[in-house]
């Protein structure tokens, strides 16, 4: 059943692409304005601990998917409930992201094109990717993820000549936005690594797993830092909260050329990975829950469902902005990112030690 084999490089790149995906256009750390970099570091550290925890869960439950771990930890009924919760959670993530990226394209480049068309075209590619299977997604990551940081670096390096470094001081005037920004970073970026419990069983080596995912995490931290610092320098802390898409604005400000449409399209790559993996997790978990042989027939159905939900849950772009700026977007993720994984971790550790005891007594 678990024949798909991802190499460690693929796992690392997939981690990178997936985690980077959601921040490509909206960075929650930016809410902290001039202290965004502090929020980022804080969030990154917390995220690091979270991801270590998730990796440890998968290490304790070698070769088991999220479904199997949940059922084993919480029993049949509760486990199934937890699985259903996670399915909804991943679906929610897919919905938020698909709508977010659809709005992004509609606002920056295609205001006259119907949103449903933009989202469907985007989804078409995602469906094809997900249907191709996890092995192909891994290979795709090898081809595409290295392309993702390129425009970021190009834009950032073209700004090196800018001398306006003001705007980082004074540090930590207000604590609350920094904490909120950090929490946002964890809940929209690093916490989502929980999804990789669906992917980790399909890697071909257990050994380098920690190393490759953590290396990806390091590089991601560096890249996010570059983005935050670049935005602060180029746009300035006072304007940054006024622009919805800081990445687009700073791409427009590259001196001498207008490459913003190219950068915008590249940002979509990240969103593609995010939505694709969410969709994969949703369908795979559903297929395992209902003991369906293959998840592939479910993909198109769930993709359509995601688009419908995207219109149903979020009536307008302004509503989406209000939602993603509010505290509730962070609170929603707590059960999925913190409570359930913590429970899983504790139960797994207890079971593990029991097993060991049994072995010892025998």
């Amino acid at each position, binding site marked *: 059943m678990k024949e798909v084999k991802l190499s460690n490089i693929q796992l690392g790149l997939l981690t990178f692409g997936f985690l980077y995906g959601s921040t490509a256009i909206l960075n929650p750390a930016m809410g902290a304005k001039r202290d965004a970099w502090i929020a980022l570091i804080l969030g990154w550290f917390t995220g690091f601990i979270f991801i270590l925890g998730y990796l440890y869960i998968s290490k304790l439950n070698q070769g088991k998917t999220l479904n199997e771990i949940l059922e084993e930890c919480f029993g049949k009924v509760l486990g199934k409930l937890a699985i259903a919760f996670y399915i909804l959670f991943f679906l929610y993530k897919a919905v938020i992201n698909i709508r977010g990226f659809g709005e992004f394209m509609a606002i920056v480049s*295609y*205001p006259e094109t119907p949103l449903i*068309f933009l989202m469907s075209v985007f989804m078409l590619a995602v469906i094809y990717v997900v249907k191709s299977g996890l092995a192909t997604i891994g290979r795709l990551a090898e081809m595409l993820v290295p392309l993702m940081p390129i425009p970021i670096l190009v834009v950032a390096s073209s700004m090196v000549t800018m001398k306006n470094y003001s705007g980082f*001081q*004074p540090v930590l005037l207000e604590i609350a936005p920094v904490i909120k920004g950090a929490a946002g970073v964890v809940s929209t970026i690093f916490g989502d690594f929980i999804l990789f419990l669906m992917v980790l069983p399909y890697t071909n080596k257990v050994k380098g797993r920690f190393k490759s995912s953590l290396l990806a995490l390091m590089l991601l931290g560096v890249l996010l830092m570059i983005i935050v610092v670049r935005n602060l320098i180029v746009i300035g802390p006072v304007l940054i909260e006024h622009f919805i898409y800081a990445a687009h604005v700073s791409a427009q*400000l590259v*001196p001498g050329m*207008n490459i913003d449409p190219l950068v915008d399209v590249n940002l979509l790559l990240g969103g593609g990975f995010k939505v694709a993996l969410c969709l994969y997790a949703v369908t795979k978990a559903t297929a395992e829950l209902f003991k369906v042989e293959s998840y592939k027939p479910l993909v198109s159905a769930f993709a359509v469902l995601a688009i419908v939900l995207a219109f149903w849950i979020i009536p307008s772009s302004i509503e989406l902005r209000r939602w993603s700026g509010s505290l509730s977007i962070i609170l929603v993720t707590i059960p999925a990112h913190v409570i359930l994984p913590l429970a899983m971790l504790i139960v797994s550790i207890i079971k593990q030690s029991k097993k060991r005891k049994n072995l010892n007594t025998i």
Partner: protein
Amino acid sequence: MKRLFLFLITIGILLTSTACWNNRDLTELSIATAFGIDRTKDGKTMVSVQIVKPSEAQAGGKEGGGGSKKGFVVVSNTADTVFGALREMLSKVNNKIFYSSSQIIVIGEDAARDGIEDFLDFTLRDHETQFKQLVIVSKGVTAKEILEQEYDLSKVPGAYLRDTVNNIEARGFSKSMMLIEVARELATEGRELCMGTVQKKGTTTDISGIAVFLMDKLVGWLDPFESRGYMFVMGRVKSTLLEVDDPQKPDKQVGIEIQKTSSERKLEWTKNGKPSFTVKIKVQGNIGEQYGGHGAMKETEILKAVTESCNNKIKREALLAIRKCQAEYKSDILGFGMKVFDDTPNYWKSIRDKWNSDFFPNIEVNVEVESKILRSGLLDKPIEVQ
């Protein structure tokens, strides 16, 4: 087979659904090269757009200005809002106006005196406007008149004006501002907005001097030398020509080509707890011209004397600018407040509202200049007339 059929149908739909939505051909665009914003007497907004005719503009370029026809038209329209005026402009123009190609926004003096915040929102909100386009204030004339100005050297006035503004880099007598910078200075605490000005002079336009704003309203002007003083204080002078007296021949002058400047400011507290500033300006330059040349500039004393007068001149200009802002306009365009904010955010909070009216006009500012003269061009010494 089914898949192939589906594929063909999709392609068919895609082909028929083209030419709508955002697909606009180049020929369906009115290419705007400059915007002008004026305030009419009855308080409405008049937006003028300079639209170029590409073939005319191109023909002019190719044949060295041979075409006699004007390469552009200026269309204006009056409405309550900027976007309203622009949309209604389509009643006078056949093709949709393409904003992204706009090179410069000219704000009329009256409009600027009324406050520019009204106009800024559209330009920042619309996805087509470019944040990199320049913004400038017209002095003594309406923006429309500036847009209507024809130039002998170019058939695309917007681009001509843009290039002239960019020449500030070599002159230092004005300030070039991009749209994003305008927004940023407006939103920044402890620093008021200022930007370059454009005037009409004879058959052409002239860009010198700075328009000083308080909040978003125009309050006055700095003349070219004060402007350069301001630019020195801000460390924004890329290059300029400084004319100082020749120590060997006081009635003649030496032109120093300034190549590199930087400035640093230090916040100090006076005995009664008021902030005071020391601005340190560092300048590097070459001898560009020795007008009515006399004697080589080799002697240490002479060089010292030139450097000294360089220092004095820069200091005088800088102080002129600072005094004028303090005394006359009460507008902290120099960003001293920002420094206070950076260093002592809590103190700043208590004085924020009174900064421009009470504190800034009275703060003490010292200017220290350190110039260095490095080269003397190709000549070792001037030619001596025998």
